[in-house]
């Protein structure tokens, strides 16, 4: 079990809102697309609503214990995470096991999560200034536009990278779509996590703690 139903819902709703934000942003921003699509008032309305809705699934998701636990995992960088970033053979597999004891998330996933979290907050803040500009002086508005514009390009690149990595890894896709991954995939990509899950499982069957089967 990799992701609970709650976690998957949080991911899917956030992903949908993010894609709509990026799609409408592209149509509002890139001149060639704007020329074809037009309809600024409609696009702007959709963009603003989806933008302000973006943090809602994440905030609601904090009610989920599994989601909070994963946020904690994404936050923490262990020594093997630094090694994962440095080494060229970070994805190497030996005897069906990844050579590095990667936890539930690898360092790349952690960086992606941190960047996305920071970007969402910045986009919300600057987006608020752009949506309700009246109380702000010109230089703040222009500054907010500057950050919103250039950060958009970065978010576009990082999201494309995230989708690229996900789409070429069937195991990872299955994990996010069904919540489950098979043990061999987990051992290859997240050896440290498999060990942790297994030792927890042993503890559970020894009767030290009852209830959760994670």
């Amino acid at each position: 079990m990799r992701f609970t139903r709650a976690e998957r819902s949080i991911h899917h709703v956030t992903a949908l809102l993010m894609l709509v934000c990026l799609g409408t942003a592209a149509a509002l921003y890139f001149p060639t697309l704007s020329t074809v699509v037009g309809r600024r008032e409609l696009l702007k309305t959709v963009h603003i609503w989806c933008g302000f809705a973006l943090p809602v699934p994440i905030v609601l998701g904090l009610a989920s214990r599994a989601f909070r636990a994963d946020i904690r995992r994404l936050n923490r960088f262990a020594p093997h995470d630094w090694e994962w970033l440095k080494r060229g053979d970070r994805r190497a597999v030996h005897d069906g096991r990844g050579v590095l004891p990667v936890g539930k998330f690898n360092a790349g996933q952690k960086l992606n999560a941190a960047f996305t979290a920071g970007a969402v907050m910045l986009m919300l803040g600057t987006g608020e200034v752009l949506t309700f500009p009246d109380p702000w002086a010109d230089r703040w508005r222009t500054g907010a536009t500057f950050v919103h514009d250039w950060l958009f390009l970065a978010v576009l690149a990082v999201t494309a990278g995230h989708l690229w990595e996900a789409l070429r890894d069937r195991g990872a896709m299955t994990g996010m779509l069904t919540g489950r991954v098979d043990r061999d995939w987990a051992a290859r990509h997240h050896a440290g996590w498999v060990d942790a899950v297994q030792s927890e499982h042993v503890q559970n069957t020894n009767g030290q703690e009852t209830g959760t089967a994670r």
Partner: protein
Amino acid sequence: MAPRVVTKLWRRCSNGGVSEEERAEGSPVGRRIVLGMLGLGAAGVAVGASLQERVNHALAPVGQLGNVLPAAGGFRYYTVTGSVKHYSGADWRMTVDGLVDKPRTFGMADLARLPQTALDKDFQCVTGWRVPDVRWAGVALPDLLQVVGVAPQAKAVRFTSFDGVYTESLTLDQARRRDVLVATRMEGGPVTHDHGGPVRLYVAPMYGYKSLKWLGGIELTDRVRSGYWERRGYDVDAWVGRSNGRDDAPT
């Protein structure tokens, strides 16, 4: 479960050293990245205005880049409708009617026979971007109004776009300024479709939304009627630097 929660709360409240468990989990790099980004973002908002100006200057020699990345400077393409019909110069017509002595229809050739006016002026958008020193040419609106003759009861001029949706208005005094053009040329060439061609309005002293694109009709009216964006909260008298809560340098 309860004791675990209590320990966690205690750990969070205490400012003691890092516990064994936390050390095993590693350092909170994710949080540092998020905080770092927020710091950078705040700095970006603070210095963005001057930084963007420098970006525009630095990328200006690249020229066409502004057509790909608006943040690299240049015009941004705005339309409020889905698609706008293309008119060639030969097919384009504009009616001038309402409170006038001689209502009539103009083609490009008719405009070309009227006195021509050229202006080198900035284009300032209410959203903040500005394109410096654009060469505009065409018929000054007062010259056009003289041809049709303004009736005494006329107080305002209303413009309609052949996109079918967009409208704008000026008071008669504003419309009689020499720096308000029915523009047929821009930067030494025809006004292209994306810039609102073949003929657009250029209201030099006001924000860009007054400079209606795809001009299709002019009507003299007894009062100012709010235009498209003005019904959505923008100022009707859109002087650059003196409206919409902005303080840009006048164009």
